[in-house]
């Protein structure tokens, strides 16, 4: 295992992109037969653990965002012994707290013809036919129960005057199926799951370890046996054993440095699992959100999302004359180009995110962009304010308008917002089967950390749905099927696998601290982010990706020679935490580039410049690329191994995705 630590010596020859092909994945535990009955039949076939035996089984849950908190609370309710680890100083601070817009569910409370089938279809189509039918149908099916449960928890969703739940529409759907709690839906849902978790803590079923970061996953004889964590306050390294390990550690959008993710979000947990053998699926599928506040300076530490819900009432436009420097209010109606409404009349401003983002890039590339840098478009509320009045618009978006004004110093009540796409969400993640288990028995991945349901593009308001579906209604059943086989396993941390993992973790910490170079972690991270954004962002090309690959390699090598991390490992050291996370982003960044390079088609978020229509729409290649790309780690500096999981479409016919 020590080879994992060797850092490649800089070579003279340019590194180039390569990979090898491994065996295809033919077993994903998806049931067969009628789509509507699959989940029910599958549940009925899973092994069960008797209540008195559940107490003997220990489950480690890493992460307490929507996915982790809901899973840990539900597992605690079932009677398992649960240990939760989070690097945050409280589970309530997870990145899920920041979700604004809403959560989808096929409730059809509006009588607008919604159904499980339609939510399923919209999600599969929205993902550009790169997700599994079975998984997505199940997601749509359990969506209904999520809303029931959350209301029972006391989550104050928006309501109509009659006292019943209100909904609104979101991108990629022609129905109003999005439930919301003003602009703070994620906060309210997370606080609900957090409260359920705290209840289990009080009841003694769950223990939560704050300020503890997972630094390695322990795999012994092919099974997940536990984790190595670092107490961030004292610096102590601990071994923790469990009968199963659940990673609910969120997405990796921060590889790009600038993103809408919380600053601390990182890929370490899933990347370490990957290095221990877990396949990483579709790493290059990264969602770039169309409505974010444009970057304003070098010092900038993150980008702020303006919720997609704004596109319900806001109209996107640019001046018809490139370089028009007039104030937006003084540009007359007939000199404004509502390009989304013109290009996509049936969905208009509510086209899916990938399409809206690309369209913004396209008009800016054509010279129509606005603002000081020319990399922005307008999102204008003046029509909506006229139509509904200030009061209604305030009710809907008040906090978002305030946030925008605070950051930019401009008031959306007076002048249109300026927006530009930014990295937002990662559809890729650890490969999991229908039971949400990775290819390592006993290791599960839920929420944004897995790749499961969104294909090549996620629809708005579907991440919250997926995180809670995984945590409340799927994992609690499926994990029992595995745990039933582990009843007689005695957990121990006194094994060679634990000793090795601990030793490697300590060496990694020592190495980054002892480099004592001249450049800060942030300087490296910014540089990495820029390379990824330019080459593996809104548009990708073989030549750009090849170049980026060698740049990332080189930067990674420089990182290990030039980085400066002050302090020691035996204390609270935020820079050390950051350095370890960024070092993993380098390796992940390389894999993202390889994945983007290998997929010679465009689909969803993944636009390869070589494969597009004249109008700049994605050109999918279903004959060759209708598969999940699951990558296996082959060792430091070695080309990764590609396993293809073919995607079968039995119920929907992959079509050219049209929102015109």
């Amino acid at each position, binding site marked *: 295992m020590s080879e994992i630590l060797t850092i490649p010596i800089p070579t003279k020859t340019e590194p180039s992109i390569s990979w090898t092909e491994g065996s295809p994945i033919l077993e994903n535990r998806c049931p067969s037969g009628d789509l509507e009955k699959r989940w029910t039949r599958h549940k009925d076939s899973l092994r069960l653990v008797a209540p008195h035996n559940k107490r003997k089984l220990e489950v480690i849950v890493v992460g307490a965002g929507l996915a982790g908190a809901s899973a840990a*609370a539900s597992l605690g*309710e079932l009677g398992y012994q649960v240990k939760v680890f989070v690097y*945050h*100083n*409280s*589970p309530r*601070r*997870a*990145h899920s*707290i*920041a979700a604004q817009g809403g959560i989808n569910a096929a*409730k059809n*409370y509006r009588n607008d013809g919604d159904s499980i089938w339609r939510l399923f279809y919209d999600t599969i189509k929205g993902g550009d036919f790169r997700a599994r039918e079975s998984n997505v149908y199940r997601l749509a099916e359990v969506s209904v*129960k999520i*809303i029931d*449960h959350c*209301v*029972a*928890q*006391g989550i*104050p969703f*928006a*309501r109509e*005057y*009659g*006292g*019943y*739940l209100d909904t609104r529409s979101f991108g990629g759907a022609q129905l109003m199926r999005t439930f919301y*709690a003003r602009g*703070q839906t994620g*906060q*309210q849902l997370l606080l609900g799951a*957090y*409260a*359920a978790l*705290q209840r289990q*803590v*009080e009841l003694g079923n769950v223990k939560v370890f*704050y300020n503890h970061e997972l630094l390695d996953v322990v795999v012994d004889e092919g099974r997940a046996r536990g984790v190595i964590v670092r107490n961030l*306050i004292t610096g102590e390294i601990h071994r923790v054993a469990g009968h199963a390990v659940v990673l609910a550690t969120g997405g990796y959008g921060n590889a790009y440095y600038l993103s809408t993710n*919380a600053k601390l979000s990182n890929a370490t947990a899933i990347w370490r699992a990957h290095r221990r053998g877990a396949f990483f699926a579709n790493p290059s599928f990264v969602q770039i959100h169309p409505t974010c506040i444009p970057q*304003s300076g070098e*010092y*900038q530490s*993150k980008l*702020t999302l303006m919720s997609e819900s704004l596109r319900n009432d806001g109209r996107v436009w640019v001046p018809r004359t490139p370089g028009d420097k007039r104030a937006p209010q003084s540009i007359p109606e007939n000199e404004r180009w509502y390009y989304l409404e013109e290009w996509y009349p049936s969905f208009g401003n509510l086209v899916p995110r990938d399409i809206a983002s690309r369209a913004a890039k396209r008009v800016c590339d054509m010279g129509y962009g606005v603002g000081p840098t020319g990399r922005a478009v307008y999102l204008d509320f003046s029509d909506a304010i006229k139509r509904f009045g200030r009061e209604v618009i305030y009710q809907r978006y008040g906090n978002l308008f305030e*946030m925008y004004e*605070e*950051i930019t*110093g401009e008031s959306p009540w007076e002048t249109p917002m300026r927006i530009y796409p930014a990295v937002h969400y990662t559809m890729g993640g650890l490969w999991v089967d229908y039971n949400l288990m990775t290819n390592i028995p006993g290791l599960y991945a839920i929420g944004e950390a897995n790749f499961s349901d969104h294909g090549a593009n996620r629809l708005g308001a579907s991440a919250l749905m997926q995180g809670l579906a995984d945590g409340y*209604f799927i994992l609690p059943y499926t994990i029992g099927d595995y745990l039933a086989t582990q009843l007689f396993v005695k957990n121990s941390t006194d094994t060679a696998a634990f000793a090795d993992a601990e030793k490697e973790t300590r060496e990694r910490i020592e190495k980054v601290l002892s480099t004592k170079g*001249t450049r*800060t972690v*942030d300087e490296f991270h910014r540089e990495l982010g820029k390379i990824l954004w330019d080459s593996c962002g809104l548009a990708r090309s073989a030549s750009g990706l090849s170049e980026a690959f060698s740049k990332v390699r080189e930067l990674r090598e420089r990182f290990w020679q030039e980085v*400066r991390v*002050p*302090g020691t490992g035996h*204390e*609270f050291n935020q*820079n050390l935490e950051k350095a370890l996370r960024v070092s993993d982003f380098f390796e992940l960044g390389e894999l993202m580039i390889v994945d983007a390079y290998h997929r010679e088609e465009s689909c969803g978020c993944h636009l390869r410049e070589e494969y597009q229509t004249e109008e700049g729409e994605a050109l999918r290649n279903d004959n060759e690329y209708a598969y999940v790309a699951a990558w296996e780690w082959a060792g430091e500096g070695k080309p990764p191994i590609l396993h293809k999981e073919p995607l079968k479409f039995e119920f929907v016919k992959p079509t050219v995705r049209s929102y015109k």
Partner: protein
Amino acid sequence: MRFTLRIWRQKNAQDQGRFETYEVDGISPDASFLEMLDVLNEKLIHEGKDPVAFDHDCREGICGSCGLFINGRAHGPLPNITTCRLYMRHFKDGDTITIEPFRAKPFPIIKDLVVDRSALDRIIQKGGYISVNTGSAPDANSIPVPKPAADRAFDYATCIGCGACVAACKNASAMLFTAAKVSHLAMLPQGQPERRQRVKRMVAQMDIEGFGHCSNTGACAVECPAKIPLAAIAQLQRDFIWANLTPDPQIK
């Protein structure tokens, strides 16, 4: 812009702690307060010094991680805003800015500006929830909630758990925080079965953690980034008296 920063430095919980002075220059007025500290930290690392530890994550005012006591006020000079949502344009070029951690006995200092606020989680553990197991809920629309009640519940539910109310209070009371949760659940039909127990147990836990008593000065609500109204405290006080003075019909 240029600033002189007087920052509280404390190596760990045992250390005495002291102010140290730093200079930063070339700060954009559009930079956030935390971005200004990022710039300082980058500079300190280059100078071979220990960067200043401070908590943060979302940087958009929702996670409740950040919390600095700036020029004698929790979250700085503006009312009702988190530190991460404070921008340097609200300061004058050349200002001297004093930065301290949120100070309160139940919030022990971990390092520099980072404090341990887990006492707030322990208050929630005592009943800041509705005891419903996954899987047992009826259809969501079978429990209609009048819109005004739902809206008020929402207003109370937006507390971000930052602890500014405690830091702003001369008694270090966590009343606004606790009241926000008690009042959120008191507004809803789902919250009724456990209403008495909840308020009693959560208030008792506040005392155990060592938070002070509320003397109704209202300093908390001025700083509260979630704009939790003082009406929450009045609600808690009413519920508390009611729960203690009237017989509980659930107990025979």
